[in-house]
């Protein structure tokens, strides 16, 4: 359970990215965050696992205030949160299998991981994740030899291997072609339902967000201007969030 209480964030250059955010996200939800670029979506997402620190307010993840966490405790918390990035963030020269295995590094001491030796059951777990994502056959291929959609699935497999309770996704399909996009979004839904993992995703394409998420949060200039189910979103709401009608590249189409 993730709870924002009066959270604000101002960057050193004076930009106020988050203004008094109050939000509660429950286990198992599939939340999509939409809004203009620079509205604060990324800051909001990244403050959850403290990849971005907040200026004021309190952020609770499963009852623990994130702001108080540092060093080892912070890493223990991050272990339970998976993160998916727009540019996949894989180690290109490494095999898919090794990439997925790195999801477990936080579960061992530094010394042990330096040698790259993982226990047998974790190797099986990595393969299981790959199987869930449907790319088991690519296990020992080099990561950069895969297509964009496949690479994002590897990233998802890596996140799954962490056995997380939450997965944060920062514009996960923005770099993918329309067909692959749909496949990856379907994967998110599958993970959400099968493992009951909370999904919080920043989405650039509004129609995708509406189609796949169970809850929509609209951000404008650092504040939440909409929080409800996809069915409640109409043209007026969208204008409120975006300040204008949508451009064609904010809608995937079909």
């Amino acid at each position: 359970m993730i709870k924002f209480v009066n959270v604000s964030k101002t960057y050193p250059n004076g930009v106020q990215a988050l203004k008094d955010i109050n939000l509660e996200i429950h286990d198992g939800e599939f939340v999509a965050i939409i809004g203009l670029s620079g509205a604060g979506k990324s800051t909001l997402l990244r403050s959850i696992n403290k990849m971005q620190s907040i200026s004021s307010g309190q952020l609770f993840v499963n009852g623990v205030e994130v702001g108080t966490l540092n060093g080892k405790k912070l890493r223990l918390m991050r272990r339970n949160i998976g993160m998916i990035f727009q540019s996949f963030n894989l180690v290109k020269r490494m095999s898919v299998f090794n990439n997925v295995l790195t999801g477990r590094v936080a579960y061992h001491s530094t010394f042990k991981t330096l040698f790259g030796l993982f226990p047998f059951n974790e190797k099986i777990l990595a393969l299981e994740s790959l199987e869930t994502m449907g790319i088991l056959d690519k296990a020992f291929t080099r990561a950069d030899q895969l297509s964009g959609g496949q690479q994002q699935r590897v990233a998802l497999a890596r996140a799954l291997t962490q056995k997380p309770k939450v997965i944060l996704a920062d514009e996960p399909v923005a770099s993918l072609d329309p067909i692959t996009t749909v496949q990856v979004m379907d994967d998110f839904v599958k993970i959400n339902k099968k493992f009951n993992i909370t999904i919080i995703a920043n989405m650039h394409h509004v129609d995708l967000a509406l189609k796949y998420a169970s809850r929509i949060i609209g951000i404008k200039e650092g504040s939440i201007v909409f929080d409800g189910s996809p069915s409640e979103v109409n043209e007026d709401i969208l204008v409120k969030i975006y300040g204008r009608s949508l451009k064609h590249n904010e809608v995937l189409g079909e």
Partner: protein
Amino acid sequence: MNNLEKVLKKQPKKWIINLIFVLAVLAAIVYSFAGSHINWTRFNTVGISLRIMIEGLGSINTDFLLGTGIYQFEEGVVYLALETLAIAFLGTLIGAVLAVPFGFLAAKNIVGKKVARIGEAVLVLIRVFPEIILALILVKGFGVNALTGVLTIGLHSIGMIGKLFSETIENMDRSSIEALESEGADTLTKIRYGILPQLMSDLSSITLYRLDINVRSATVLGIIGAGGLGASLILAAENWNWDILGTIMISIIVMVLLVDAVSGYLRNKLL
């Protein structure tokens, strides 16, 4: 479960090759130390040696630096440093100019595979000689003086610059030439506006890089008398004259750092 275990077993075992490689190298190194006659007791004197060295290095002999007092101007570090620079500069210049024809003769897309192979072989032959050996040979023909230094560096640079230049020619970007062709340009124009700009900027970059290295070589060549700081260096070294040695070392460092900086700056501007 079993299915996955099978997949795991099929994993390519790259780590074995890596391990063997690392062990082999380690073994070779241990053998290097064990098999040679190393006098480990010399390490006891390191402390004393260090003190002597630092004392000597700290005191700069200004007479020697400027070529005043008991030293002739030509024996002074300032003069010698300039002489070293001169050797490096002129040698690199000669090398760069002559490297152009050699470079073309070694480029497959200019003279064809067969001739290029011969050209490459010639360049390899020139490059394989360590500069000091070249210098020892040329000394016989040109005397123990700065001229030999210039020729040694020049000859060696033909090989070094020539190789990189021929690679540049082979990797030449054809698109600008095609654009000119489509405009109806003749051969001379194509060379002047399509090929020359690319090649010249690359050649300049290669040459500057080489100049940097040649300055260091020029200081060393003096060891056998080919001019520059090296000669004084070896004399001072043989007498363990640390303050002179220190002066020389510091000036070498300063000179090389300067050339490094200038060369780096110019190369950045070229890019």
